[in-house]
């Protein structure tokens, strides 16, 4: 037997060394595993989870609509698509479909930067996702997908026709915000920027309500190891049903625009006023019908200020005019304290745009002037300090604390009752009333009417006026000027809400814009019923105030200040205001008028302020505000089914007929408010189908409405020879020139 070579002891020893080395390596690796788990376990776990979510896709929610009280959409979100390029898929099949795909993209999407696309596809052949175009309309996307699906036919090497399937381009859902009325109610609605973030107005205030929750599509492995996807649908945002009426809003905006056109370069060069603000609301429940300022901007493109002269807004001195009317003791209200978005480092243009975007009616404060007088009087009456039967002697001024505080009529009006004092807007009477009340009572009523507090209207950017009213340290002179609305600041919405309480029986309603919130399916989630915050004065005081305020408008023109505010055929109550701006004596005034119709049973309240009207003698120009109020009321009242109760004089009828044209023919600017052609909605019977305009049709054509509410050509209207009233072309009935309803009329025009 041949000698067997043995595995020697020395070898065994070495083998043991080897085993120990292996063992050591194993122990070391186990320890390494342990340290990885110990030190990085949590962060790696998160990393893994975040990778998983990368694999899933986001399904965007649809932001809720904003609709007016009739259901017309003021804002809605439209589904669009982002074009995504998958470079890896483009290169598949040995680049066979790369060039056809790129040339199809080039021909179908002219906006696409093809050099960028080519660079991306070339440089990052393994990348699978990059967005190249955003906001592609659905029909464009479908057209492209059809072409893509059809593929491209070409000749292969043998000259045979083959179809090349295309790949590498897909679309991702997204939404864009659209405002079909463009500029209408721009300050009130607000706009959306970036990733569904609202700015200003309703869009900002109700941002979270309007926004929904993104959905997701997840991939997961089922028990059979097959990839399945599960979809968690996006939860769409809620719809805001507002109290705003698109028609009233367009009426208001049209008249503001007409005002600006009429008084352009009237006395001094430039705009008709430094600022203007109008609120139309229901005094009986706090619902806002319309809220407007000037200038307007296109909500669809808020940074596009074409057609808006920014220069008046550029320098802080002029634009600040309204808000700088601060209390004398406080020198001036800084812009920052009022501005809702005072970013310190904004450039001039952005600052100017912010001023245009903000809502004058809630964000700017000013001295109210004589519109304050009813508040002072109501407080004194309600507290029993005066009975209303007192008479005061007006000598044209009252000397208070060494100052002669003058009346509007420097000669004095002699003996005046409280009512006459109101009608003539006599400062002396009011100062006396305030002195009778005393500082504490006056301040108490000031607080009761919510001055110095926010009204908490549901709009973003309401100014905090708490620093702008008088406090306990108010002096006698302060009380004297405060009685007629000088020396402290208010906001328009405070005034309108307080005045509503003054005339509606004393109930202070919180002013509001949204009446209910619906989910995306239309189910009502929240009904915002009118909320009585408090009773500010008694029913009887309110009754007295209505009577008193009626005389401001309804008295003989010689005996009252507000007669020019009255729409023909109606009774109106109200109060004029002419506030001297700060610094005193510079001849700058803020004129205003607060009116309500009918005077006995107020249904609609309209508050107009005009800051620094372009007129030779601003203190005498209050008529500009009253006439603006009248023009707005004349159109709004018939629309709201409030019928005229008074006989009209021949002159009034003639004026109405003359104005008919002005009312129903919009100027160019106003017709921008027309609904874009593509968004005319069904069931919106007041919208004319050709151009979708309400009251404000194509400026080239004169248009009016027949009894059925259809638009008819002005040229076709025949007039009744006896009365001069228009005839309904359909029925031949005599129509009321204001309401355009048959005179005997119980035919519904526009029912609410």
């Amino acid at each position, binding site marked *: 037997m041949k000698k*067997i070579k043995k*595995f020697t002891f020395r*070898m065994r020893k070495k083998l043991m060394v080897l085993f120990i080395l292996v063992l050591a390596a194993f122990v070391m690796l186990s320890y390494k595993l342990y340290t990885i788990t110990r030190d990085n376990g949590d962060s790696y776990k998160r990393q893994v989870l975040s990778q998983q979510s990368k694999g899933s896709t986001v399904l965007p929610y649809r932001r809720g609509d904003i609709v007016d009280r009739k259901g017309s959409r003021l804002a809605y979100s439209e589904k669009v698509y982002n074009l995504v390029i998958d470079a890896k898929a483009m290169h598949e099949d040995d680049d066979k479909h790369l060039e056809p795909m790129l040339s199809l993209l080039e021909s179908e999407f002219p906006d696409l930067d093809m050099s960028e696309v080519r660079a991306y596809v070339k440089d990052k052949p393994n990348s699978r996702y990059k967005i190249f175009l955003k906001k592609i309309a659905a029909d464009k996307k479908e057209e492209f997908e059809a072409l893509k699906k059809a593929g491209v036919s070409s000749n292969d090497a043998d000259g045979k026709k083959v179809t090349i399937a295309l790949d590498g381009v897909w679309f991702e859902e997204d939404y864009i915000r659209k405002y079909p009325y463009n500029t209408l109610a721009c300050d009130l609605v607000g706009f959306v920027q970036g990733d569904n973030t609202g700015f200003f107005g309703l869009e900002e205030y109700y941002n979270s309500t309007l926004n929904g929750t993104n959905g997701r599509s997840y991939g997961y492995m089922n028990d059979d*190891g097959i990839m399945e996807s599960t979809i968690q649908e996006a939860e769409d945002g809620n719809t805001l049903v507002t109290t705003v009426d698109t028609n009233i809003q367009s009426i208001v905006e049209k008249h503001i625009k007409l005002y600006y056109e009429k008084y352009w370069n009237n006395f001094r060069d430039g705009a008709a006023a430094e600022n203007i603000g109008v609120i139309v609301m229901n005094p009986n429940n706090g619902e806002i019908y319309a809220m407007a300022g000037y200038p307007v901007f296109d909500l669809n493109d808020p940074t596009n200020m074409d057609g808006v002269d920014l220069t008046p807004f550029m320098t802080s001195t002029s634009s600040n005019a309204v808000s700088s009317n601060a209390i004398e003791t406080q020198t001036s209200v800084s812009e920052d304290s009022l501005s809702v978005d005072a970013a310190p480092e904004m450039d001039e243009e952005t600052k100017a745009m912010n001023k245009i975007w903000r809502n004058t009616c809630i964000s700017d404060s000013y001295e109210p002037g004589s519109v304050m007088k009813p508040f002072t009087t109501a407080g004194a009456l309600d507290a029993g300090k005066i009975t209303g039967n007192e008479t005061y002697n007006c000598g044209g001024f009252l000397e208070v604390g060494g100052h002669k505080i003058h009346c509007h009529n420097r000669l004095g009006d002699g003996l005046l009752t409280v009512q006459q004092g109101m009608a003539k807007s006599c400062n002396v009477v009011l100062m006396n009333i305030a002195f009778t009340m005393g500082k504490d009572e006056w301040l108490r009523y000031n607080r009761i009417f919510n001055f110095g507090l926010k009204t908490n209207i549901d709009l973003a950017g309401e100014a905090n006026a708490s620093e702008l009213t008088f406090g306990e340290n108010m002096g006698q002179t302060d009380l004297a000027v405060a009685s007629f609305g000088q020396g402290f600041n208010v906001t328009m919405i405070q005034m309108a809400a307080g005045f509503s309480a003054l005339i509606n029986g004393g109930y202070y309603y919180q002013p509001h814009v949204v009446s209910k919130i619906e989910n995306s399916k239309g189910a009502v989630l929240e009904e915002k019923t009118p909320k009585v915050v408090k009773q500010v004065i008694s029913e009887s005081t309110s009754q007295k105030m209505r009577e008193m305020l009626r005389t401001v408008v309804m008295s003989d023109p010689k005996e009252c200040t507000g007669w020019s505010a009255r729409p023909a055929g109606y009774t109106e109550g109200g109060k004029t205001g002419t506030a001297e701006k700060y610094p005193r004596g510079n001849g700058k005034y803020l004129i205003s008028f607060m009116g309500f119709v009918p005077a006995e049973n107020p249904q609609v309240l309209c508050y107009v302020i005009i800051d620094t009207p372009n007129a030779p003698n601003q203190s005498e120009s209050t008529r500009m505000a009253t006439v603006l109020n009248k023009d707005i009321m004349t159109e709004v009242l018939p629309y709201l089914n409030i019928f005229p109760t008074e006989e009209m004089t021949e002159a009034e009828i003639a004026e109405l007929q003359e104005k008919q044209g002005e009312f129903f023919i919009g100027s160019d600017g106003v017709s921008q408010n027309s609904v874009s052609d593509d968004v005319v909605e069904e069931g919106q019977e007041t919208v004319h189908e050709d151009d979708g305009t309400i009251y404000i049709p194509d400026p080239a054509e004169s248009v009016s409405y027949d009894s059925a509410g259809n638009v008819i050509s002005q040229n076709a209207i025949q007039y009744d020879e006896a009365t001069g009233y228009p005839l309904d072309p359909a029925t031949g009935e005599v129509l009321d020139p204001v309401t355009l309803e048959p005179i005997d009329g119980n035919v519904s025009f526009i029912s609410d």
Partner: protein
Amino acid sequence: MVYSASSYEASTKFNDSAHYIKSQAKATFLGLIVMGFVSKLDYHFWKKVYLPIYLGSIFLIFLVKSPIGMTINGANRWIRIGGMSFQPAEAAKLGIIIFLAVLICNKRKSLNSLGGFINCLIWALVPTGLIYVVTKNLSSAIIICGIAVVMLFVASPRYWYYILGAVMVGGAVAGVIYLVSSGILPESMSFRLGRVKAWLNPEAYATSKGFQTLQALYSIGSGGYFGKGLGQSTQKMGYVPEAQNDMIFSIICEELGLFGAVAVILMFLILIYRFLVIANNAPDLFGALLVVGVMGHISLQVILNIAVVTNTLPNTGVTLPFISYGGTSVLFLMMEIGIALNVSKAHSAE
């Protein structure tokens, strides 16, 4: 494990989640038959055929370049025989074990001298170099070289060759690492060394060369101490490349946790310990050396694989014996086990 790790990719690629496991099962079944056969075959048989085996395995390597060669994933490492693909490198590993065992037995005395040692080593370096040059398979080359070194280490009476060699290799590696990390090397040279860079700082190369490593680390970390449960890995869904293959250990860590991973390591340790016992009790040097070769092969692969997965070593494509997917690998590993079993049997028969 292969089933769990591969089912996602299998279902996406082949629309059959069991695609890999079926193919693996076939190979394993074949492997079991071969193992059974080999374990009955007296291991001295290998002594007679060592030269044909050595030459044959070299020949197979060249076949990769022939028409029956196959390219998978851009790597030209397979040949197709009949309906089956076959990786010559795996055959070469077994080949080198048998060949060296015979060689060492024949030239035992000369191993004491440096010349004899180098003479043996050169025989091993031929297939090593071929595998690296012909199939561009660095990891297999390293393992073949490693097997040779292990067998020679055990057989030769000297230590200092190895200590010197280890110091030299270690120094060279440290030098390369220093050069790479300090950025002295020009970009053109650093292509091969990109893996080294990625190894040093996987986060910085998270989307390119470090991706696989980093994802493996994520898997290990996210498994925690007891894992997510068998089949619950999320990383295998396309995040860890080669989840059923080189990176299977990371999926084991994710699904079974540190506990499961250490259990797997312990099983390998037991296996290797058994090889140690068999080698020590082998009736002759040849049998012992065969077992040492097998032991070296399996230890090296296990260590390298786990080291790569844990980013202890730069990324090379080494599979985890018996666990990773790979038909040829399983077949030849089974054959090696069969040889070891036969050696063990020879001892107990004595």
